[in-house]
Structure formats: C-alpha cells, structure tokens
C-alpha cells in the first residue's frame, strides 16, 4: 500500500509540473514581449494571448505552496526560511508582473506601457530562473542542520550547477512560450515566433545537456534512482528531438506539446531523483528532509487527500473550459476579442 506522504509527494510534484507547464508558457510569453514584439500592437497581442489564463496558472504555484505547508510542514519551513532572499526576489517579480498585466493598458501613454513591459519582462524572467536555481541547489544539497534549519552561504545558492539549472529552466519556459505564441497568433508574429523557436531550441538543447552532465557530477541524480532517471533523460531528449522536427515542419500544436512534455519530464526527473528526500542536506544524509520525517500527521493527510481528489477534477475541468472559450487566435483585426 502506498503511504499517504508518498502520495502527497507525487501530488506536490504534479502541482509543480502543472505550474511549469502552464505558467511556463506565460513566463515565456512575458519574456517575448520585450524579445520578440516589434511594436506596441504586437506587445498588446502577445499579452492578450495569455490575458485570460496567467492568473489561474499562477494559482498552481500557490497551491503547490499550500500543499507543501499542509502535507510537509518541515519542508515548507526549511525551504522558505532557508531560501529567504531568493523568495524575496520571486515575490517582487510575481507582484510586479501581476499588477503590470492589469495596469499596463489603463493609461494611454507610451512611457507608461513601456515601464510595465519591462516589469513584465523581468517579472517573467526571474521566477523560472530562481526556481531553477532553487531546485537544482536542493538536489545538490544545502547545509541543513539537525534541527532542520538551513543556513546557507552565497556559494550554496549560487554556483555553476545551480546557475545552469536556473538558465535551463528559464530557456525551457521561453521556448515553450514562443511556441504558445505560434498557436495563438497569426501572420507576422506567428512566423517570427516560430523562427525564433527554431533557433532557440538548439540553445535549449545545449543548456539541457550541460545541466544533465553537471548533474552527474554534482548530484546523485543517476546513482540513487538511475534506473528511472536515465530513461527519463532519454524521454526528454526524445521530446526535444521531436520538437526540432515538428518546428521545422511547422506543426505548431505538436511542437508545443513536445516542449510541454519536455518541461513536465524535466521537473518530473528532478522530483524522481529527490524521492524520498524533499531536501538534501550537504552536512550529512541523516539530516535530509524526507517525505517521512517532514510530513504531517496521518489524519491531516487523509483529509487533504479526500479534498484534493474530489476538487482537482473540477479545477482541471473548468480550466480546460477556459482554454476552450478562448481557443481563437488573437490578432489586431479581431476587435471583438
């Protein structure tokens, strides 16, 4: 029988996969606003492709945070207090980005819009980068003491491996976002986004290769759970290989699905390698936080399981409906949007 705390580990992983898959493309679109758009109309169009969705996408992160709090209080306490400064920056980014989407169009001024465009750009760039740094450094191990407290120095947060992880996750999101744009826009922007994705994917592949190779030295990604992580790496390579193919064939839907699968598999690989640990201690493995020593009581877990299992289908259902409602492409002629 599966232990509830193990099930909750899977659920947390699923929530993060959902977050990176969904918010991944809107982070990517957010970055594209400064990278790909040529004028104000194009910027507006790009933002509108994610307009109805980004807020709900972000709730995946909030739910993941809540789930960790409820199911693994020690994980929540250790991670959020240990990564204090990175989380300050994540919050600044998310706060700025969220209001920027809402405020940008409220004043008829170029300067005003431009300011918020930059907020959207950095607000979309920083979170995936910082979460990439966070997850790779967790995997590498952080100085967690016997009281489960994490007091790390600068080089624990920032090192070649964690920065590579950060850049990789950011690039995965950027590519995913560019492909989302090919699905939701027309003519010029669509072509440009596709061309951009076609070039970017090689950078993504290089970055992923660097990340996975470094993982072999810096972490126990392949020694602890090699029989699962190795095939996962194979699948990731296959996804992005197919993405290269589909982009060249202009099959936008399939390309997007492949980068989505790539993101899901990458996050899945990180969580698989972690299990049953949730945070690795670099001091000694006895201090690792695991799904067993960091979890809530049995009753709490049961209640939460019932709640989650009964609510998630509805959530997924109406979120799918929202994508169905706004299935049309966005363009400048579509005045009824």
């Amino acid at each position: 029988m599966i232990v509830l705390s193990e099930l909750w580990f899977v659920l947390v992983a699923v929530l993060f996969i959902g977050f990176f898959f969904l918010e991944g493309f809107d982070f990517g679109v957010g970055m594209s606003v400064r990278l790909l758009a040529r004028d104000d109309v194009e910027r507006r169009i790009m933002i509108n492709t994610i307009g109805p969705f980004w807020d709900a996408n972000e709730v995946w992160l909030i739910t993941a945070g809540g789930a960790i709090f409820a199911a693994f209080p020690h994980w929540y306490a250790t991670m959020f207090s240990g990564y204090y400064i990175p989380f300050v920056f994540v919050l600044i980014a998310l706060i700025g980005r969220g209001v920027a989407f809402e405020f940008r169009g409220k004043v008829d001024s170029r300067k005003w819009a431009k300011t918020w465009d930059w907020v959207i750009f950095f607000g979309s760039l920083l979170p995936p980068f910082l979460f990439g740094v966070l997850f790779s450094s967790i995997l590498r191990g952080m100085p967690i003491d016997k009281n489960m407290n994490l007091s790390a120095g600068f080089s624990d947060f920032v090192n070649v491996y964690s920065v590579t992880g950060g850049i990789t996750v950011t690039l995965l999101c950027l590519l995913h976002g560019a492909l989302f744009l090919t699905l939701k826009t027309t003519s010029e922007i669509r072509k440009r986004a596709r061309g951009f994705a076609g070039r970017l994917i090689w950078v993504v592949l290089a970055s992923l290769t660097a990340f996975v190779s470094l993982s072999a030295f810096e972490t126990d990604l392949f020694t602890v759970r090699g029989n699962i992580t190795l095939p996962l790496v194979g699948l990731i390579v296959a996804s992005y290989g197919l993405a290269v193919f589909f982009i060249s064939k202009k099959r936008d839907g399939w390309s997007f699905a492949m980068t989505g699968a790539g993101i899901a598999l990458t996050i899945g690989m990180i969580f698989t390698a972690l299990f049953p640990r949730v945070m690795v201690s670099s001091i000694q493995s006895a201090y690792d936080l695991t799904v067993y020593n960091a979890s809530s009581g049995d009753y709490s877990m049961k209640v939460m399981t019932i709640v989650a299992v009964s609510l998630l289908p509805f959530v997924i259902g109406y979120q799918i409906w929202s994508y169905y409602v706004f299935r049309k492409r966005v363009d400048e002629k579509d005045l009824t949007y």
Partner: protein
Amino acid sequence: MSELVLARLQFGSTTIFHFLFVPLSIGLVFMVAVMETMYVVKNQEVYKKMAKFWGHLFLINFAIGVVTGILQEFQFGMNWSEYSRFVGDVFGAPLAIEALLAFFMESTFLGIWIFGWDRLSKKVHLACIWLVSLGTVLSAFWILAANSFMQEPVGFVINNGRAEMNDLFALLTNPQLLVEFPHTIFGALATGAFFIGGVSTYKIMKKQEVHIFKKSFDIAMVVALIAGMGVAFSGHAQAKHLMESQPMKMAASEGLWEDSGDPAAWTMFALIDSENKENSFEIKIPYALSYLAYEKFKGEVPGMNTLQAQYEEKYGEGNYIPPVNTTFWSFRIMAGTGIAMIFAAALGLFYSFREKLDANRWFLKGMTVLIAFPFLANTAGWIMTEIGRQPWTVFGLMTTAASVSPNVSKGSLLFSLIIFTTMYAVLAGVLIYLFVKEIKKGADHDSVIGHSASVDPFDKEAYNL
C-alpha cells in the same frame, strides 16, 4: 531592533496593506455581480455600464489583493518557520484548501469574465462573475478558519511537540470562526458599498452621469445598511464570545486593569498608562460593558491584573498583557466608524427615497469622505484581533517570540522589509492614480473610445469589460 521585532513589523505592515484590498474586492465583486444580474434580468444597458465601470475599479483593486496575497502565503514559511513547523499540520490544510477550492475558481472565472463579454451568452457570463464572488467568500472562509485556530485552537492534539489535526469538522465549526466569518464578510460588503456610495456621491455632486450614479448609490446604500447591521450584530456576538475564549483581549480592549465590579461600566475614553498599570482619566457608561460581554445588565468582567495572575499560574511566568493602548483604541476606532456608517447608510437611503440627494451637498461631500471609514474599521478590527492576542501566536500554545525563523538574519529581514514597504508604497500610489483616472473617465468611456480611432485598437478591446 531584534529579528523578532523586524519580522513582526514586516508581517504587520504587509498584512494590513493586503487587508486594505481584500474586503474591497469581496464587496465590489458582489456589487458588480448584483448589477450584472439586474442587467440580465431587466435588459437595460445602464446596468451593464454600471457593472463595467465598477468592474474596472474592482479589477485594479483585485490585482493588488491577489499579488500581495502570495506574499502572505510565503511569509509564514519565510519569517515564521518555527510556527509553520508547529502548526503546519492544522494551519496549512485550510490554506491549501483555499487555493484549491477558491483561488482556482476566482482566477479562472475572472479571466473568462474579463475577456468573455462577447464570447459567452449573457447568462453564462453572469454565472462567471457570481462564481468569482463565491470564490472570494470561500477564500475568506478558509483563511479565517486558519486564523480562528490561532485565536482559539480546536480540533488538534499535541504529538511529538507539534500540533496535529484530529478533527477537521471542529476546525470548521470553531466558535471563533462562526462569529469572525460573518463579521468579516459583512465588513467587506460594507466596504464595497461605501466605496461605491462615496464615489457615486462625488459624481452626483459633479453632475456627471447622474442617472448611472444615482442607481449605483441606491444599490450601494441598501447593501450598506444591511451589511452595517450585520457587522454590528456579529461584532456583538464576537465580543460576547471573547469573554469565554480570550478574556484578556476583552480586558485590554476595555483598558480594564482591575475587575470591573458588577454591573460593569463601559469605558468610552481613557488615558491609559500601561507602565504603571493604571488609567488616569476615564469616561464611563454604566451597565454597558456588562451588556457587551453578557447581553444582560449585570455581571462582572475580569481585569488584566486578575487574568495575568491566572495565566501565570496556567502557563508559567511571563507577561500576558497585550499592548493595551493599541487594543483599546483600535476597538474604539472600529466601533465608532462602524456606528457612523450605519447612520450614514440610513440617512442616504432616506434622502434618496425622498429624492433629496442633490439638495444636500454636505451629505454628498460627507459620503465621499466616508469612503475612508470602512478601511479604518477593517484595519482597526484586524489590529485589535491580532495585537490583542499577543504574546501568543496560537493562543495558549505558542508565543510569537517562539514562532520566528531562527535562521533568517537581521540583514535579510531589513532588506525584505525595505523592499516590500517601498514596493507597496509605489503600488498604493499607482492604485490611487488609476482609481482617480477611472473615476474621472466615468461609466460611459467605453463607447467614447469606441468612436475615436485609438492608436492601438487592441488596447481598448483587451480591457473591454
């Protein structure tokens, strides 16, 4: 300043800021939903214009409420890790359920509502805004369930030095929650109503789009009066309950050092010297405190000195008296502004019914000033609830001093405190700027822009509520 003081300062300031927006969002979206319902039922364009105009203001406000809420969730782990370890089992569950049940609903259906005016049938579109409204209320319920646990811990056992949940039903029927939830929701509805009321009287005074704003004003005042009464009754219930659950908070909010004597008089005004534990000047209303505490004109209310002795016996040595002046005055600000609002709402309805609104310029002006009142009341109420619970984070179980993260340095705290307060100040400025802009534009601006050739046609469409 110690880490504890900094962490408390940050938590206090970010929570108060967050709670300026939450009640307004809950209140406004409810009113927008009512207006859109009238549009669908009566099929008159004027109600659609109203829903869109107030919807604009709601969205600006909602955005800040949402983003500052993320900070609230993360902050428990960041600044109060010991607290999170101790109560995560009980406290985390309502937070997670809130996200699953309420946040997803709010955000998804709000997205559909904003961009869906021309994509959905009228009824489906209306259903979306009601689902958003329901989401905000559900969200409040779960957050208050978590907060009520801090005021009155129920449904748990202590296991391995941690509080573990053993009865969710107890958590959801927490007596504290049953009085706190209606009080907060009525307060939120009153906030939305007075905001709409005050902006409407401003526009009426300026003679702009008077027919739209008179209609808005009427709806707002009906809601304001009902909500105002609701706030008063649920507030009274809460005070009564305080006598059982946190008598110390009651005593502090009354500046009552010694036992009151029977019957207890209510202190309207006092100069409190908490150093020497005495009041130098007091104005009292006989019998009133007995009524407040027990709903009858007799009964003694224990004072802080008595309770301090009791608590020391029960919990060991320590200071169990919260900051008295803060608790005392926040209660009076809350109750005073609350009563003023009830009178204003009744008067507003009377004038409107008699069609004498335009003639009473002082009243129109007064209503605009009164926009500040619900915010004062909400903030004061929150301060009283939270400060009055000190030194406890979880009443009787864990002190605030023991809750703070041991591994977060003073430098980090100072850094985050400066960053967040600066950022929040900027946001507040932008919000007020945008509010004023939207209000000046008025309810008809959608169609006006529609006729002019906008530089960026998408701009208008994107926010074409």
